[in-house]
């Protein structure tokens, strides 16, 4: 499916870790918006097609974590916390995508120190 291909490419096609954070935010902020659209589009599929239903959640969690990770690596701890606070939006993450929220809690703790 084309949609899946595109989303997979997005994961693979990130800036370099040492690129300025503005480059990262410009890209990932828009992606985040697109993930929201994908999540909303497949809202009704939670019973019939689990995989499709979680597609958006999974990638959204991944990209928010990635951005937070890069912000932390570049020493921008405040930004890291801010990204984690603001960009999720969906507090009810599914059980199977929990691994990523747990990871984000870890970054959160690291930045808060």
């Amino acid at each position, binding site marked *: 499916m084309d*949609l899946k291909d595109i989303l997979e490419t997005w994961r693979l096609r990130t*800036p370099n870790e040492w*690129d*300025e954070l503005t480059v990262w935010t410009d*890209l990932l902020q828009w992606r985040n918006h697109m993930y929201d659209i*994908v999540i909303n*589009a497949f809202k009704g599929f939670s019973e019939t097609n689990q995989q499709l239903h979680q597609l958006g959640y999974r990638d959204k969690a991944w990209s928010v974590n990635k951005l937070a990770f890069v912000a932390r690596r570049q020493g*921008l701890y405040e930004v890291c916390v801010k990204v984690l606070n603001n960009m999720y939006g969906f507090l009810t993450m599914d059980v199977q995508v929990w691994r990523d929220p747990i990871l984000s809690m870890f970054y959160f703790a690291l930045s808060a120190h």
Partner: protein
Amino acid sequence: MCLWEEQWLACSHRLNQWEVLVDFGRSVENYDILLDTLWKVSEWQNLKDTVLPKAQVEESPKFRMVQAYAALNENSLSSVNEADMRVGQGVEMALHQWWQLPEMAVQSHIPLLEQFQQLVELQESARVLLEIGNGNKAPSQGSGQLVGVQVALHCNFCYVLETCASFQALASYPHSCKPKKLYTDCRVQQGHMWT
């Protein structure tokens, strides 16, 4: 704008303080700043109604991108087509700027490469929206053909830019672990490929 103001703007930019930037942009009516920040705080209505029609900024790929963002946000078939058109114009402008750069690939090429990536992802976003729309309703014959053409075009373009992206990745790779000479060799060869 005075120096310290510019420094402050760059600083807030880096710290992701979009709300502050929006407020500042409003108070001094700087449309450049507003165009850059409004979509990040999801003030789409504001962006579409007041800023986009009024903004008298230089035509640039960035401006086209913001127009495409706003169009895609509406999420209807006509707006997706409009976004596609804007992206096309943006690509054209970016390419125009590209060939004005010196042949030898240097630091100055990087911002444009980044813009290219954003443009490609916008195009892909349009595809995603079309796909979602198609999934919800059975496609009619006519629109099916249109989409087919768009897919073909998109694939070609995507392929080219995928290569560009890997070039960029490669370009930064020797930086860290290979001797300087190899790095320049790579860059020169890539420079040829670009032309």
